[in-house]
């Protein structure tokens, strides 16, 4: 019996003897963001440059095990990919994601009372934890949330007494013997069916849904209100936050995102267009208009401009898996907040600071209003968010290093390691750097997702979904 030592990465060594191996030091979830070499794995979606509006991806979400990956698009469709089961000991890469189910979640609607069309675009998808063989997810457009059940059918009953195999009914008088129908295998069929429709509770546009850790309730947030639902009850919801002023002329702030705490079922946060985050405790009162905590960083006077408020508007808020921290994304940065400290974030990462001097142009072309999302890796050690020119950024909280990568079909050979990218803000542009003025502001990565357990990420460009994973071996 001999053993083999292999250096797996800068931080990790693999010790193997026979079929057994261990990794030292053991890592839970991901290692350092920059010690991982990210490789192209797959790309989904049309190849043309001419993007059909309906195909624009509007949300991406892994389920709790990471086996399923759901995307929603502007055309109201949901596409679910499933990871192939792979032989973990011998494989050179993790399983690929293939289409598992596709269904039309929302249709365009017309509100006759207000003479307005309601877009079918899927704003958010959230998975429920799996309780039985079926999978459940919530999907929402601007006004209506739906609970979908996705189930597999791989057997069917055969041998009915009163029905022929082709479905025709038999004349009961011709039946002389009885038999018990049996289940026989059939080709796998994945069915999606709407189990609940939660409608008519939002006057304004829904921007967030979040499932409570009690797995029985969830919240939905629009620009001015947050409602609490029970998953079983569709005709009633409780309003828990209402920031609509008595006089709409006094409106100066809207809700931009909301999320339940991952462990405390009584706690949730919501962010605003003024850069504040409020943490609320549902035990305090039925209407959580008074926050328990208010997280806000004072404005840096040297950076003040006409656009200060717009760039401070928070586009996404996400709790860490541990529940100790939360991350917010505003136009130029990602901030990590300790829930115990309200007056400033504990960490701030600049996503694309070179855009600060371009704010006027970005205001003019409305890019300054783009809403970027952000996400944590499984061990809360690395955070990721998107940028322009199909770039996305990762920040390692431990090593304080960051990396910029590009989602592009040019690097689409499997296991091709992605080359880090760099934007040249000013001065002489080095080789391989891209100048700010060359950035394509139409190519924006707003939606990204990180597998809950492994180093697999899903990055959505306008109409393509890229899957990257770390280099194995």
């Amino acid at each position, binding site marked *: 019996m001999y053993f083999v030592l292999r250096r797996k990465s800068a931080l990790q060594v693999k010790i193997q003897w026979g079929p057994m191996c261990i990794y030292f030091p053991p890592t839970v979830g991901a290692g350092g963001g920059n010690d991982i070499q990210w490789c192209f794995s797959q790309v989904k979606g049309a190849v043309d440059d001419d993007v059909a509006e309906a195909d624009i991806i509007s949300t991406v979400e892994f389920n709790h095990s990471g086996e399923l990956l759901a995307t929603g698009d502007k055309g109201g469709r949901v596409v679910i990919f499933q990871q192939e089961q792979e032989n973990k000991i011998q494989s050179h890469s993790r399983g690929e994601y293939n289409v598992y189910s596709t269904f039309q979640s929302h249709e365009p609607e017309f509100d006759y009372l207000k003479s307005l069309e309601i877009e079918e675009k899927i704003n958010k998808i959230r998975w429920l934890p799996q309780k039985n063989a079926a999978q459940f997810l919530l999907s929402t457009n601007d006004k209506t949330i739906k609970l979908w059940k996705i189930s597999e059918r791989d057997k069917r009953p055969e041998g009915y007494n009163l029905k022929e195999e082709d479905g025709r009914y038999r004349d009961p008088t011709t039946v002389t013997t009885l038999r018990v129908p049996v289940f026989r295998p059939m080709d796998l069929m994945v069915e999606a069916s709407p189990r609940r429709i939660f409608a008519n509770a939002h006057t304004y546009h829904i921007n967030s849904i979040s499932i409570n850790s009690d797995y029985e309730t969830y919240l939905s947030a629009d*620009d001015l209100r947050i409602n609490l639902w029970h998953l079983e009850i569709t005709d009633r919801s409780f309003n828990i936050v209402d920031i609509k002023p008595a006089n709409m002329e006094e409106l100066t702030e*809207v809700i931009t995102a909301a999320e339940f705490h991952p462990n405390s079922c009584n706690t949730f946060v919501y962010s605003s267009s003024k850069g504040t985050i409020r943490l609320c405790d549902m035990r305090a009162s039925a209407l959580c208009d008074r926050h328990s905590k208010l997280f806000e960083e004072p404005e840096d006077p040297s950076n003040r401009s006409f656009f200060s408020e717009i760039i401070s508007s928070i586009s996404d808020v996400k709790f860490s898996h541990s529940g100790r921290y939360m991350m917010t994304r505003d136009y130029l940065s990602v901030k990590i907040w300790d829930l115990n400290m309200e007056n400033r974030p504990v960490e701030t990462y600049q996503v694309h600071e070179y855009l600060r001097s*371009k704010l006027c142009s970005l205001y003019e072309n409305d890019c300054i209003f783009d809403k970027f999302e952000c996400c944590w890796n499984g061990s809360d050690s690395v955070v990721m968010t998107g940028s322009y020119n199909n770039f996305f950024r990762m920040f390692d909280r431990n090593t304080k290093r960051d990396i910029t990568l590009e989602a592009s079909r040019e690097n689409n050979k499997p296991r091709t390691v992605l080359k880090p990218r760099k934007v040249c803000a000013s001065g002489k542009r080095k080789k391989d750097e891209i100048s700010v003025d060359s950035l394509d502001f139409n190519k924006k990565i707003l939606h990204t997702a990180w597998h809950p357990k492994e180093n697999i990420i899903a990055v959505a460009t306008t109409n393509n979904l890229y899957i990257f994973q770390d280099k194995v071996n």
Partner: protein
Amino acid sequence: MMLSKGLKRKREEERETETLAGDAWWLDPSLPAAAQAPPATASSSLFDLSVLKLHHSLRQGEPDLRHLVLVVNTLRRIQASMAPAPTLPPVPSPPAAPCVADSLLASSDAALSASMASLLEDLSHIEGLSQAPQPLVDEGPPGRPVGGSPPSLGALDLLGPATGCLLDDELEGLFEDIDTSMYDSELWAPASEGLKPGPEDGPGKEEALELDEAELDYLLDVLVGTQALERPPGPGR
């Protein structure tokens, strides 16, 4: 994606050869932002741009509320920097015997803010509330001193000389179908209560009107005539 009439800017990717300075010419990147005051014309074109955005946003069947609120707040910032002390008074509750000229001056701004306010107010009609739009009443609590900016300025209360440039044909066309009798009734509401918005206030206010039709017509004519006179030449137009 973006309409910006008269303010042509090349897209970022077409300007590879231009330097950073060409883009935000009033913001020299080597200087801290706070040390620079944008020249008046830059603020003014930013103001125009913001008004166009607001206009565009309000035209949507169902405006993106976040976009709307952010643009309005930005407009207020720009306006505050252009005219730190409002030269025209906010619309106060008219005293019992208002000076016609003063009221008309006030109302020329009020007319615009009234229009904008009523449009924003229409958003609350989405809920089926039966609030009658209260265009002029929300400029501040009654009896506030005329000189200062009332803290309870409505989100769209735009004061200052720059508002004149907003009264172009396009914007007026948008507001054409607004019932102008509201302007008349607001001017002459009594100084006491009844100036706060609320569905119950509507009928009360109407009862308080004491003018006859001829006087209302006269006022309307003068109002329209004064708006035309009030319009200063827009900067750079």
